[in-house]
């Protein structure tokens, strides 16, 4: 198990390194930020001075090496736009994004699994068919459109929920959270639902497929032949088996949700990393964009690692093999 984790960590490091290269080259292709940052009446000398100040006068490979050297010490450069270090800027926005993403994932699980189980156990019932139909909608409606509709209905038309910002927050261990205040919670609901919709559909389909497959297994019939109550057969024998794929996919999707929160954050002006990214992209604020991408990559890697470990914990068959390696 330890060897396994160590090997995965080494792989992860390689991935992160490869990403630095891709990200760095990628943002260079977008365009020169200097064109946007300098004032219109700036002459050639002023232009060169700006380039030098931002370290953009060096050849590309040297820029990369400088970046890499600084990155190792945790310095991802200063924001071109506001001149503060990029990394803390992103990290400061991280709790808002994580709060949104985790709330969305929570919704996906507590709504998706029960509905998916229902649809799997009663596939021919009206409810079962309605659930599956709804999940198709959840898959196909674009997130931004649903977001706008949510604002229209709940904020504008009904006027029951706020549509922008985080609302009132409280500090817990130095981290600002919305979810603990009533006002904050009200602000969280719409963006979280918006972000969760696709994932709910995903979890429904995954759970349903798992249930359909599991209930035909001999061990489920045998559990019934032993006289277990239907509730125990479903909540223990079936659920425990479908949790393996569900946890795996939900875990892997968490990284996705964090990345995708860009859309919901923008629509609902949720002050997270995603909104910062969009604002920074507009200004071609390279260090912030790079810092965002690096942090996202790191999160993906860490999440994947955690999911792998969780997966082995859930499936005793894999656990044993892992120990044998």
């Amino acid at each position, binding site marked *: 198990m330890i060897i396994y984790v160590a090997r995965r960590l080494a792989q992860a490091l390689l991935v992160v390194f490869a990403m630095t290269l891709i990200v760095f080259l990628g943002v260079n292709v977008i365009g020169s930020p200097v064109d946007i940052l300098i004032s219109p009446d700036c002459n050639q000398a002023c232009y060169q001075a700006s380039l030098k100040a931002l370290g953009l006068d060096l050849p590309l490979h040297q820029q990369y090496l400088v970046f890499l050297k600084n990155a190792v010490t945790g310095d991802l450069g200063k924001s071109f736009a506001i001149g503060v270090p990029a990394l803390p800027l992103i990290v400061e926005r991280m709790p808002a994004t994580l709060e949104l993403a985790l709330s969305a994932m929570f919704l996906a699980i507590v709504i998706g699994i029960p509905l998916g189980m229902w649809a799997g156990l009663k596939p021919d019932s009206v409810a079962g068919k309605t659930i599956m139909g709804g999940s198709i909608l959840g898959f196909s409606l674009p997130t931004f459109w649903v977001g706008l509709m949510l604002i229209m209905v709940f904020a504008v038309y009904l006027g029951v929920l706020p549509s922008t910002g985080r609302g009132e927050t409280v500090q817990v261990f130095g981290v600002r959270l919305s979810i603990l205040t009533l006002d904050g919670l009200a602000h969280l609901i719409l963006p979280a639902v918006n972000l969760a919709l696709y994932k709910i559909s995903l979890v429904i389909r995954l759970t349903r497929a798992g249930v359909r497959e599991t209930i035909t297994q001999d061990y489920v019939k*045998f*559990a*019934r*032949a*032993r006289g277990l109550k239907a509730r125990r057969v479903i909540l223990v024998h079936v659920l425990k*088996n479908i949790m393996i794929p569900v946890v795996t996919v939900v875990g892997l999707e968490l990284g996705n949700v964090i990345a995708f929160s860009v859309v919901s954050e923008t629509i609902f002006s949720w002050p997270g990393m995603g909104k910062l990214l969009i604002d920074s992209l507009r200004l071609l604020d390279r260090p912030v964009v790079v810092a965002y991408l690096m942090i996202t990559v790191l999160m993906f890697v860490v999440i994947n690692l955690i999911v792998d470990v969780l997966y082995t914990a859930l499936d*005793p068959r894999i656990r044993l093999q892992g120990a044998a390696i």
Partner: protein
Amino acid sequence: MAETLRVENLRTSFLTKWGEVTAVDDVSFSVDAGEILGIVGESGSGKTVTGFSILGLIDPPGRIKGGRILFQDEDLVGLPENRMREYRGKRIAMVFQDPMMTLNPVLRIDTQLIESVLAHDKVDRVTARQRARDALGQVGIPSPDERLASYPHQFSGGMRQRVAIAMALLHRPALIVADEPTTALDVTIQGQILFEVQKLCKESRTALIWISHDLSVVAGLADRVAVMYAGKLVEQGSVDDVLDRPMHPYTSGLIGSLPSNNIRGQPLRQIPGMTPSLLNLSAGCAFRTRCPRADAACLESPPVSVPASGREVRCAHPLVGGGS
């Protein structure tokens, strides 16, 4: 002998998209306490469906269409699910064919044994655990205390089947339906398990239905044997009667193809032809395309004759007084 189970004219069918499949058709038999009934028939002849029908485990699109299943004089057909559940595992237990699939792979053995105890008896967990351990010991699993904490994949196939049998024995049921429990195991282990199950059932006077496609297994184990072909019971009687004086041409063919009745080095004698599809079977005898005695009379549904008490054959031209 007290009659534990009497099945009368059982009919179970499945509604498939190609039509109705009558997997079990007009099947009647009975088992007494302490008796072992062997049900023999080739794959697809309806043995498993018969077993599931007794436990009320026929799921849609399947349905019991007719007949009675009298367990200790109470008809189980049509019993509501919550009543039926009280019988399953408590008074009627079942062992499945493939031990690799019958235990839940993600739950420990003790979890599965203890839940079996608690499904029917209100005892505390310590007592339930004790009973789980004793049951494992009873079926010959070494150091049961340690093995309790194992997962199914940590057991061999034979050991898993012992665990399944331990679960079947937990509540000292009056009837056990064993559906080819040793088919997936190698011969030595098969022999051990047969011997132990036979002993346990005789000791506790449990009625046992032992399903198998292998006549030689049933011959060494059962008191009585029932032969199934294409959903119908074609012949039944005491093991000695049926093996020594088969009356149905199919039984006779089965006996003829046993390895012990064949000369070494020569190809095994086999019944020619193939099992018919159960879909839209016509009225006549389903065996007629393979039967050496078939004639025009076999186009009608063959009659059931009862030459002696407990002896039955479903054939228009039964063999009398000896093999073919």
